[in-house]
């Protein structure tokens, strides 16, 4: 065996070992799931047929959900535009400022939107304002990161030329660099709008407004017909937004030639939509916020509970973080296994169009359901605990992973495949040697990215009792136990930072 072959074998063995460890930590028990599979369907069955009469009551919270996501996405993305060059290494912003900004972004990125929303409710009261603030901060962190990475990869010769002619840095940046990164910036923004709609549908769980409030209420009152109606309308909203978004993204990416008046019309529509959303937004409710509370929050937050932080027992932070990481790993792995066949079945290049269309709808339906609902469904079969968390994340990963896999299949280059065919290579071997090598790096990159996302999602699964760090964190926050909350946050930041570094190294090594 060659050295490269030995290395690959060692890598595969390591991955397998990690997966087995993750399965052990999360108490994976497929037999239990199989034995209690009946419980998966009874809840789903109770939701259908949905309670159609409930629909008129949904309009207002659906609008509030949409309003939060649009306002949050636009504000966050707009703020990212001036912040990104300050973080990019290629501009000579003061190093101190760059490091501080990057640290803030890295820290913010460690928290799921739901935790940010919970924090916002303490400052701005219950309601959509807190949700909007959370989504703004969340979008700002991600967009700044993506944009400064784009800036670092973009050619800066035009910027330098403008600077050499005496232009000030800011105008030179907006005239020379922003147009170059605009397609990527806009399509990232559109993608975040899509995720934010999904996120804002659950922010109500922590009182941050939107349809999640209603979903939580109907779920706990066991009014499953109404829950079904909410899910159905979420599915409809997701369908509309994904379709519109898909068209807009294609327009941005391929610069589809639009007449100027159509471009202006689109911009105007967007501006009007944002203004309506922003102007009609509910004001913050600060009646419950006192200077005293904010002061105790801040003073306790800078004093983490070190005893809990360094506790190595099963009740300590270390174990909880390990469990969170294991849930994310097991969930990502199971999600990949589910997503691969779905992606192939929904690829119009490989299967008949109607079949592909059907599977695309299935994937969209899976994506449209908020992940906490999956948590609540799985909990009935496998009980509270980490295994339920892993199952939930597996189903949640399917949407994004199969979408990425599908894009990879659509972009496949079949020339090498045909070249092998003309040499007399049988079909299966052609797929193995001419198709899989092309797919592998894209698949690996998508899986790594999803693992990153799952790590944050795993941190809120505790909300429904599905294991991980989420339950203690939310519990501590609701108890105003800020020093415990602070040590958990610190642990989460460190975990995300470590995984970020590892996956960066892995990406470099695999060249993806």
């Amino acid at each position, binding site marked *: 065996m060659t050295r490269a072959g030995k290395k690959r074998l060692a890598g595969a063995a390591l991955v397998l070992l990690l997966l087995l460890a993750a399965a052990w930590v999360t108490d994976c028990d497929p037999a239990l799931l199989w034995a209690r599979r009946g419980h998966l369907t009874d809840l789903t069955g109770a939701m259908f047929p949905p309670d159609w009469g409930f629909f008129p009551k949904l309009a207002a919270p659906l609008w509030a959900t949409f309003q939060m996501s649009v306002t949050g996405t636009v504000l966050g993305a707009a703020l990212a535009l001036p912040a990104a060059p300050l973080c990019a290494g290629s501009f000579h912003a003061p190093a101190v400022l760059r490091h501080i900004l990057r640290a803030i972004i890295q820290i913010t990125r460690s928290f799921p939107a739901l935790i940010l929303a919970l924090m916002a409710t303490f400052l701005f009261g219950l309601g959509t304002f807190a949700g909007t603030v959370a989504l703004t901060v969340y979008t700002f962190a991600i967009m700044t990161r993506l944009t400064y990475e784009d800036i670092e990869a973009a050619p800066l010769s035009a910027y330098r030329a403008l600077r050499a002619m005496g232009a000030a840095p800011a105008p030179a940046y907006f005239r020379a660099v922003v147009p170059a990164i605009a397609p990527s910036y806009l399509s990232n923004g559109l993608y975040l709008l899509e995720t934010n709609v999904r996120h804002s549908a659950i922010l109500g769980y922590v009182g941050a407004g939107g349809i999640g409030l209603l979903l939580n209420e109907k779920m706990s009152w066991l009014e499953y017909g109404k829950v079904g109606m909410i899910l159905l309308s979420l599915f409809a909203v997701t369908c509309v937004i994904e379709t519109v978004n898909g068209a807009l993204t294609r327009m941005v990416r391929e610069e589809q030639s639009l007449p100027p008046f159509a471009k202006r019309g689109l911009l105007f529509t967007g501006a009007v939509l944002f203004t309506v959303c922003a102007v009609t937004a509910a004001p913050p409710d600060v009646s419950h916020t006192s200077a005293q509370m904010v002061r105790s929050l801040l003073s306790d937050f800078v004093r983490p509970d070190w005893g809990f932080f360094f506790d190595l027992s099963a009740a300590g932070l270390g174990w909880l973080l390990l469990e969170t990481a294991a849930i994310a790993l097991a969930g990502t792995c199971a999600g990949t296994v589910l997503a691969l066949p779905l992606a192939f079945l929904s690829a119009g290049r490989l299967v008949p169009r109607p079949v592909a269309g059907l599977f695309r709808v299935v994937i969209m339906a899976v994506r449209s359901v908020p992940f906490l609902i999956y948590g609540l469904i799985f909990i009935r079969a496998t009980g509270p605990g980490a295994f339920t968390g892993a199952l939930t994340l597996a189903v949640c990963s399917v949407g994004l992973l199969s979408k990425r896999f599908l894009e990879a299949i659509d972009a496949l280059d079949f020339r090498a495949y045909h070249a092998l065919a003309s040499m*007399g290579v049988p079909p299966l071997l052609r797929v193995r*040697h001419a198709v899989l090598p092309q797919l592998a790096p894209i698949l690996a990159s998508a899986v790594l990215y999803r693992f990153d996302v799952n790590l944050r999602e795993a941190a809120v699964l505790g909300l429904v009792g599905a294991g991980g760090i989420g339950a203690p964190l939310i519990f501590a926050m609701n108890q105003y136990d800020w020093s415990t909350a602070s040590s958990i946050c610190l642990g989460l930041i460190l975990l995300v930072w470590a995984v970020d570094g590892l996956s960066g190294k892995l990406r470099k090594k695999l060249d993806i």
Partner: protein
Amino acid sequence: MLLSVQNLHKTFGSVAALSGVEFALNAGEFVSVIGPSGAGKTTLMRVINGAVAPDAGEVLLSGASLTAARGRAKRRLQAGIGTVYQDFALVETVSCRQNVLTACLPDMAFFPAVCGAYGKDRRDEAAALLDRVGLSDKTDAPVKTLSGGQKQRVSIARALMRRPDLLLADEPVASLDPVTGQQILALLRDIQQTRGLTVLMNSHNVEFSKIFSDRIIGLASGQVVFDGPPAALTDAVLAAIYGSPEAQP
């Protein structure tokens, strides 16, 4: 006679790509097919290597009909032909050696083929071929890191790995700069002469074809309008192939 092409017809929709093409190649010849864009050159290549089935006519390889063969028998005949493509048709993400080795897949048992367990002999042979085409230092580099000329060299090594009797080259230098193109053709000619290979090449470049070929076939509107030595390729003949003198390349 190594290759015999008999009365080939192929239409795409209402366009006749080939209408009654006939010629034969003897072992060890280097033959260029020239003609304007749309004359049917690429279709001819694709019919000869079995990628496209003709509407009528036959392709005989050493007397065996490729057009009549199906399934395993067809693949066995195809295995005796190496093809070099204008756009290289390589798997970009894997190494040069891995790409060359894919040419061995038709001869291997299923499981070793799936696992890519080619064995030491084949791996050494692939390395030797890459050395032959001047890429000894790129053996394990991913194809995506190579220049166009280097990619075409890998593609030639892959075709040679089949130990073919017949090498088809579909505009092998059309996407390369003139100097690199000449180097690639010189390499191809050199290999053809040392190995006694038969080469059938499509070309847009009449000058290159005159320098490197033993024989030239002129194709226009899907028909053979010239078949002779380079010396016989006069301006009048070129006008017949390419239409008006202005249309000549």
